[in-house]
């Protein structure tokens, strides 16, 4: 690379690299992905086109899906870093400039504003399991209703329920309160994750600065990526091991459980109305069954212990009898003789 190049020269270099990338991509996916796209297309979009080819289920489609999603993020991030590298002479930029390039790479176009500059939150959102998603969807579908409740000062949530439907009203008040509480808890959790994301950029910058010496400089995109991962994990661990996180994490879990519990009660009520067996009824049967099994086992175990004791006693007695045959036999013989005499006298 030449330090005297103009901005136009760098632009040409960058365009050449983009063409080179797409030519290589077309070669790699020949016959499958159609024509090579415009060189200015973001590189990760090639992977999206490629991903569509794997829409049909294969035995490992889930792994392929996860792999492609990760590769897309990786390529977008690396393209951003490479664009930054192409605009500068080798080693021309200080750590903050690279950190800025990293931010740009992590903020994909179309990204939810809440996830901007917040890669850890994005990862955690992608990670969310089906169970948690269902609760979040519910929370989202109630959002307008909950927003109105907030505007009205939440006063109605504490209003006494009256009349024929008072039980239902009270239940819905509790459910709304639980959802609001859950939203608040999630917001506090997200704020901490954002804090971890911000800290990750600081740590990344520090780690880069540490490498500003011969023999430690970063020469590959992968090494750069791995450094970013180290920084992100370090920042996350700092926050996740804090006393504040423990409290906030516990609150999210507990708040979600209260929402689930309210939903379960509603489902149970509907089940009862329809004459369907409920979770509570089954739990009750299972609990009784386990208690019964324990009682039976205890009896069996106690009986076995008693049998073993009895067996041990008998063994000891037999052993004792075996040890004194010499004394026992004459005594037994005398006793038998006395008995015979008595019997004979009686017959007479």
């Amino acid at each position: 690379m030449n330090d005297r190049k103009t901005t136009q020269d760098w632009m040409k270099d960058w365009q050449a690299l983009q063409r080179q990338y797409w030519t290589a991509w077309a070669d790699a996916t020949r016959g499958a992905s159609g024509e090579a796209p415009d060189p200015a297309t973001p590189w990760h979009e090639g992977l999206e086109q490629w991903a569509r080819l794997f829409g049909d289920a294969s035995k490992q489609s889930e792994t392929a899906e996860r792999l492609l999603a990760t590769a897309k993020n990786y390529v977008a991030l690396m393209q951003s870093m490479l664009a930054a590298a192409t605009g500068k002479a080798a080693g021309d930029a200080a750590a903050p400039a690279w950190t800025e390039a990293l931010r740009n790479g992590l903020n994909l176009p179309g990204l939810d504003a809440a996830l901007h500059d917040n890669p850890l939150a994005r990862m955690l959102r992608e990670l969310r399991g089906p169970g948690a998603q269902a609760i979040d969807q519910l929370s989202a579908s109630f959002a307008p209703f909950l927003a109105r409740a907030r505007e009205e000062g939440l006063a109605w949530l504490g209003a006494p329920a009256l009349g024929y439907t008072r039980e239902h009203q009270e239940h819905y008040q509790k459910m709304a309160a639980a959802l609001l509480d859950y939203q608040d808890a999630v917001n506090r959790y997200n704020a901490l994750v954002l804090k971890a994301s911000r800290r990750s950029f600081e740590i990344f910058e520090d780690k880069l600065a540490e490498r500003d010496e011969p023999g430690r400089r970063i020469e590959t995109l992968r090494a750069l990526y791995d450094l970013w991962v180290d920084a992100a994990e370090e920042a996350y661990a700092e926050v996740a091991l804090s006393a504040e996180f423990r409290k906030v994490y516990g609150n999210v879990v507990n708040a979600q459980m209260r929402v689930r519990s309210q939903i379960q009660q509603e489902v149970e009520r509907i089940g009862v109305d329809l004459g369907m067996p409920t979770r509570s009824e089954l739990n009750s049967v299972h609990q009784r069954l386990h208690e019964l099994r324990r009682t039976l086992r205890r009896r069996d175990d106690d009986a076995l212990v008693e049998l073993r004791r009895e067996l041990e006693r008998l063994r000891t007695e037999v052993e004792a009898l075996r040890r004194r045959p010499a004394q026992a036999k004459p005594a037994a013989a005398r006793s038998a003789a006395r008995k015979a005499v008595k019997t004979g006298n009686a017959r007479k």
Partner: protein
Amino acid sequence: MGPIHIDPQRAVAELTTFNQKLAAGLKTLRSLDEVDYGATPREAIYREDKLVLYRFRGETSPTAKTPLLIVYALVNRPYMVDLQHDRSLVRNLLARGEDVYLIDWGYPDLSDRYLTLDDYINGYIRRCVEAVAKRCNVEKINLLGICQGGAFSLCYASIHPQTIRNLITMVTPVDFHTPDNMLSHWTRGMDVDLFVDTLGNVPADLMNWCYLTLKPVRLFQQKYVGLVDILDNKEEVENFLRMEKWIFDSPDQAGEAFRQFIKDFYQANKLVNGGLRIGESEVNLRNITMPVLNIFAEQDHLVPPSASRPLQQHIGTQDYTELAFKGGHIGIYVSGRAQREVPAAIHDWLAAR
């Protein structure tokens, strides 16, 4: 100068290679069948509810006179100890003459929700120990507890010491309140009663989500970027998929046992602080007077070494040995180093006793 010296031409080549491997590898991925696991022949010798007690069959008859029973954790499937032909703790132990048995807990469903730690430890484990001892015509057996199964084994050995000749614990948490234990840190803010009362059994997906969020970037992103490196190697991909299956093939957790485990172990740290009761029996680690081998992994993020090491201070034996393995919580079963070091260390330690 600056910290980054990336040559753009080389960088494009690097990304191009990445894409080529990805494109070629995805074709390979599509062609692969479901991966199999479990390399060693075995026979079921005892069954109870969903539990199966297996005896493994080696290529030659065992030379060890005392059988070795492996007690695995409830939170994952036990085939990790016999994942594949060249990654098998069981196979390597058999090759050295050990007589190896394993408890497979099965997959609890909602009918198992009310199983307690008493049912698991004084019930299932006790009856499995009796079954192995009876079959081998011995009064005492060797016990190898892994992870949560290690904590169970410590409880069992302290309550029924007369049935255990030697105790081995692997990646076993003892002190749950060390500052680097993230999992324990998180559980201490949870209302576990509300959690179990609401969920019943604890879903495996939720457990896995929790484990992944211990290191979200490494486990949900970097791992799959690394997968691209091996995508052109069918055997390596199969190994990866086998591991992937094991990680996510997790049983739900029986609610009551989970409740007590979180409350007494994670939250109250009773294994160390005292006051732990399993059913009607008090757990006193001082009752563990048989020889103990404690193996832990130096890079374990689930059970940090600081959680395992304190065992020595709390048990009653004078014959205590520690083995620090250079690797992580999973590498201790499946890495090449593990195959060379761990079974040999266990066998040699047992043979000397």
